[in-house]
């Protein structure tokens, strides 16, 4: 388990409008090493919007996001390289097999070898369908695969939008354990979810929006 060292993420006074209406008005977040932040709120309150802003996929009308004290807009590449984002969509290539999906998507970020990939797949219990095209995976299997991608990137900051969707009980527990280990290693995690995630050994700080 590697230890990360980073000053952390801090967003100040974010204002975001979607269409005609304000979704985020003056919201602030801070995430330091070992922090697990649970973004909660009713449907349509702006969880996804917030996470996309923090991931740098959406630029807020007002307010700023800082990473290690520098605004993320200053060096997009560096910031992107430090975070891993899991959205409502799994972001998998339907025609690639589970293995290939990991090999290529993670390969873009870091060097990794077949054993590492298979280990990650085993960790999310996809070993026997690892050579199946993602299209033919079940909803939960796809979610597991997407999660394996996040794990493999080995970056300090995880931004997960409802990661527990479609997962069965075993899957939820597995994922919680993975998150816990990431936190142990000194990573930071932001989770949007409707149920409070039960992360072993760690208490999630709740951020209520909307």
């Amino acid at each position, binding site marked *: 388990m590697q230890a990360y060292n980073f000053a952390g993420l801090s967003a100040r006074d974010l204002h975001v409008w979607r269409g005609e209406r304000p979704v985020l008005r003056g919201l602030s977040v801070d995430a330091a090493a070992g922090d697990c932040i649970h973004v909660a709120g009713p449907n349509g309150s702006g969880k996804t919007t917030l996470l996309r802003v923090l991931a740098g996929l959406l630029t807020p009308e007002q307010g700023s996001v800082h990473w290690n004290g520098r605004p993320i807009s200053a060096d997009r590449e560096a910031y992107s*390289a430090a975070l891993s*984002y899991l959205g409502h*969509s799994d*972001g998998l290539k339907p025609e690639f097999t589970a293995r290939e999906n990991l090999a290529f998507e993670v390969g873009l970020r*870091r060097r990794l070898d077949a054993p590492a990939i298979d280990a990650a797949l085993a960790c999310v219990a996809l070993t026997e369908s690892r050579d199946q095209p993602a299209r033919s995976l079940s909803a939960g299997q796809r979610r597991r695969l997407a999660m394996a991608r996040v794990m493999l990137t080995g970056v300090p900051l995880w931004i997960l939008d409802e990661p527990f969707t479609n997962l069965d009980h075993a899957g939820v527990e597995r994922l919680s354990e993975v998150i816990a280990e990431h936190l142990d290693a000194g990573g930071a995690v932001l989770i949007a979810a409707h149920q409070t995630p039960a992360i072993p050994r760690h208490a999630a700080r709740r951020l209520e929006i909307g």
Partner: protein
Amino acid sequence: MDRTGTADAIWLMYRRDLLLAFRHWDQVAQPVVFFAMVTTLFPLALSPELGELRQLAGGVLWVAALLAALLGLEFLFRADHADGTLEQILLSGQPLALLAIAKGVAHWTICGLPLVLVSPLLAIGLGVPMEALCTVMLSLALGTGILSALGAIGAALTLGLRRGSMLISLLVLPLAMPALIFGARAIDMAIYGDVARGPLLLLAAMLVLALTLAPVAVAAALRISAE
């Protein structure tokens, strides 16, 4: 954990797109078959006389190649956009412009190169004399290169819109007109036995220009489309 070097990332992206294409070998053949079909359309629609066809050969070959290349373009980024992998690529922390080049070159390898390789056969079918064939291939090689570069911009801009393929055509066709004119001209000259250096050099110049400008434009367009 060591980050992937930019060179490796580019190479990986290139391999990824090739693999995606070759996942179904037939899909690589498709632009070629389409090229062949469109070329056949003209004799059917015009006249079977080789004498008459020969005069049209340059135009027909180029228009057909243009359209074949255009059709493939849509798939340069759209699939990645639809299944969310594009977001992941944007967030990969690698210089986007270079990744764009990788994708562009991959696209040319899949859609452009095969066209160049089969063009002699079709040229013969249109009554082009043997000695003109290498000019045909050369002009198409340069032309498809230009198209892939220009097309990449169009593809990136029209990302996520319905009817992508058609919109791309509309954006790219006007830009491609000069290439079309000179390319077809080169073939005609070769058919009538002249040396087609002039048009070919112009084509080469266009290609260089396109290759230098396109990547930056594409990167910008991608970021916009992803928001």
